[in-house]
């Protein structure tokens, strides 16, 4: 099936508006979906959790190049992390050159297990410093092209060589759907598993639901709402089966409070429930630290702490299954090398990406490090020496079993970087 889809049709699906298109299900709505994942006792591909850090996360604080010496410390008199071992705001040593932000300390053990990979000096090669353009290019996956209206994950799901009719195939946690998921496979948006049920007058609930579903069949123009309505009902029914009031994360894991932590926990629940989840997207926003960014205290540290504790809880909760799960986190751009006059940083360029999972070649900071010397910078910003698509291309072919990388990232020639193991070698 993958071979028959032309590139044109992959990129521009449905109406020009980027409307979430029709799923291909020919099966009656009452058929239980939970069976679909059972085809893979040994899964053909990892479950992917894709986290977008919105606002331009400061990679130079997340994974600090303390080994640069003056080039780092002179540029960031109030924001630099101290060298490892030198006090409370010291970076956690990773490899003698790079150090991890102290708020990410829960992840050090994951790094030491070789299940956490950090890629530095990576990102979107397009020169834009606009949040909205950068996010759009990164999520749609074709930098510079504003006509495309499918996301890289949407194209991955479309070109994958297997069928998965589960309504949970692609899930976006939260109220707004990530652009990366846009495509012919209708993603499910989910705020809360516990709250996802239809409520009406108790003695008429069945009749109301029937009327509603009939209304959406006769009144919904152009199929979009009708498909969404169908998905809602299927999801309600499935979630009823897996809903448990007191979910106990495995291994004593504690997810941080808040939307991000709860989002990760619910993704974990869906994975354990075997409902056919392939891709889950989740946001953590607020990284646009133009002023008073702080080092070990402040806005950046709070967010980094949420990210670190959340990822660690997820890793612990799903420990036995992490061989078939990969988590990636990226941001639309990094931030300037030099701090600004308000103890913050402005929009930059090169950044850090995270990858976590059993199939990740972790325990390293991978970078073709351009250095922070002024002549090596890109207009004052960390240069990009590894296109973010190279990281994702290897993820797609080695962990997601999808070799159609040139359809997913047209115009991009990936080269192997050795960041993800092929399944046989795990």
């Amino acid at each position, binding site marked *: 099936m993958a071979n028959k889809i032309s590139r044109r049709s992959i990129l521009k699906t449905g109406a020009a508006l980027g409307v979430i298109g029709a799923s291909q299900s020919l099966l009656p709505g009452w058929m239980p979906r939970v069976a679909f994942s059972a085809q893979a006792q040994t899964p053909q591909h990892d479950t992917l959790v894709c986290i977008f850090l919105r606002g331009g996360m400061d990679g130079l604080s997340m994974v600090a190049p303390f080994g640069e010496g003056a080039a780092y410390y002179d540029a960031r008199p109030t924001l630099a992390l101290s060298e490892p071992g030198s006090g409370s705001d010291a970076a956690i040593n990773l490899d003698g050159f790079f150090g991890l932000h102290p708020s990410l300390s829960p992840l050090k053990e994951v790094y030491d297990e070789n299940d956490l990979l950090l890629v530095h000096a990576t990102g979107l090669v397009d020169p834009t410093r606009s949040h909205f353009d950068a996010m759009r290019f990164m999520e749609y996956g074709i930098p510079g092209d504003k006509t495309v209206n499918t996301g890289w994950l949407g194209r991955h799901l479309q070109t994958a060589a297997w069928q998965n009719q589960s309504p949970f195939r692609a899930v976006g946690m939260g109220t707004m759907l990530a652009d990366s998921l846009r495509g012919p496979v209708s993603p499910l*948006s989910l705020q809360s598993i516990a709250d996802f049920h239809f409520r*009406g007058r108790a003695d008429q609930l069945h009749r109301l639901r029937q009327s509603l579903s009939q*209304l959406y069949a006769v009144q919904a123009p152009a199929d979009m709402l009708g498909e969404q309505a169908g998905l809602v009902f299927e999801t309600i029914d499935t979630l009823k089966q897996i809903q448990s009031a007191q979910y106990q994360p495995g291994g004593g894991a504690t997810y941080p409070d808040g939307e991000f932590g709860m989002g990760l926990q619910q993704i974990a629940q869906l994975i354990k429930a075997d409902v056919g989840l392939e891709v889950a997207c989740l946001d953590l926003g607020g990284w646009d630290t133009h002023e008073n960014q702080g080092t070990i205290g402040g806005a950046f540290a709070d967010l980094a702490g949420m990210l670190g504790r959340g990822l660690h809880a997820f890793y612990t909760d799903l420990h036995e299954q992490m061989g078939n799960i990969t988590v990636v986190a990226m941001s639309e751009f990094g931030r300037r090398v030099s701090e600004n006059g308000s103890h913050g940083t402005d929009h930059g360029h090169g950044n850090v990406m995270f990858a976590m999972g059993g199939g990740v070649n972790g325990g390293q900071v991978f970078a073709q490090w351009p250095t922070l010397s002024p002549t090596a910078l890109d207009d004052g910003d960390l240069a990009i020496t590894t296109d973010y698509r190279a990281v994702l291309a290897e993820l797609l072919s080695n962990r997601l079993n999808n070799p159609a990388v040139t359809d997913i990232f047209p115009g991009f020639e990936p080269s192997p970087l050795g960041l993800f193991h092929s399944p046989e070698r795990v």
Partner: protein
Amino acid sequence: MKISRRNLLAPRRWFVMASPADAFAEPQSIHFLNRISFGARPEDVARLNTIGTEAYLDEQLSPDTIDDSALDEHLKDLAILKMDRRAVYALPNNEWRIFQTMATAFMRRAVFSKRQLLERLTEFWTDHFNINADDSDYNADLLRLHNTIRRHALGKFRTLLQETAKNRAMLIYLDNFVNEKDHPNENYARELMELHTLGVDGGYTEQDVKAVARAFTGWTIHDETPDGFYFDADMHDTAPKSVLGHTLPAGRGIEDGLHVLDIVAHHPATARFICRKLAVRFVSDNPPDSLVDAMVAVWQQTDGEIKSILRHLFLSAEFGAAMGQKFRRPLDFAVGAMRASGTTVYVQWIMEEMLQSLGQMPFSWHPPDGYPDVSSAWATTDGLLARWNTAMRLTHGAQSDPEWGYGLHTDLFARIGTPATVSALVEAVGEQVFGAPLLPSAAEPFIDFASDGQGGNRTVTPHLLAQKLGSLFGLMLASPLFQWR
């Protein structure tokens, strides 16, 4: 044979609606009112039929001529609205209280104001000049800006632009208050051009961003001035600058920033960017170029006067052809549902809970681009379920369920008269929800529900009303026909 799910679910006798225009006898009236207001009301349809579209439109375009004193009754308990900004900042916990007041006032104005088009424009500009209020220390100034926007919403764009540039909330939100000659901060300069005026494709360069930032150095805040704005000459970069091909000579002060506002307000890309946004708001997600071109021409002739541009829009053929093409955003849905059902929410946290579940809390969008305005952003599974549940809560819940209806007040019985048959009942409820009764073919599914399959001639008894009235209202509000306008 391919069996589509559609055929499995729809009884063959039911009429499949090709377009919302098939649901009403006078679809153009419904369409017009749904776009210039937050939802067509039967009394508005009656007035429209009496005075005609142009007169109705001209009335709405001159809001000062419309008596809105009834609205004041609904706002009188919001004391903060009448307080001076320094008095407000002196209140304990003022940021949260102002936020609640603003959100409540927004909802009540949208539901009850007779100056509906003015409220729609106020919402439009609030999105356009987005500032979030849920996590900030400038809310009294944001409230002031919101009211200023309302005053100028139908006037000249240049006026609006200047009010936003000098507002203390905007200066803080986009960091211009720390923009100074030795350490310029580019955030406001960039968003001014990318989001407020030219648009990201408007043709400005990174050099322009840097120059505009320098032009606005010194535009900062101060605790002692009446409105919180202060131009600090010591912070200002007086060197010459070149912005979008214009020269800003050396040695000037606040004039640099004012000059930039003139340049960007009058740039041709700005006219296009804003006219297209207005067309997306009021016509369709992908408005025809012919309409945008014509609106731009009006912009040039009137120097960016919004009411003239809108007059053209609402009388255009492109507008007339666009019925049912805009998807109600969650706030639109909530306001529309409240107008339709007459339900009021008198407990603040209930309103907040409802709007959070729908996915759109006023003044809570953090990035400066404002809430998206296309259907693909809002037509999600979670959002759809939240609408169905909200529809039921505002109707059946409010009418008959003490627990679920807590914090809500309604009287659905008072809105429907005394229909004798289920057909008449559905007609009456339909008129309240949509502004006009549904044509028999569109009414079928609702008649089926309300009569338990027995048909429109079934007699309406008090028992039937008690059983079905709330849910019938709710079903109409949850239906696809109500999601599209």
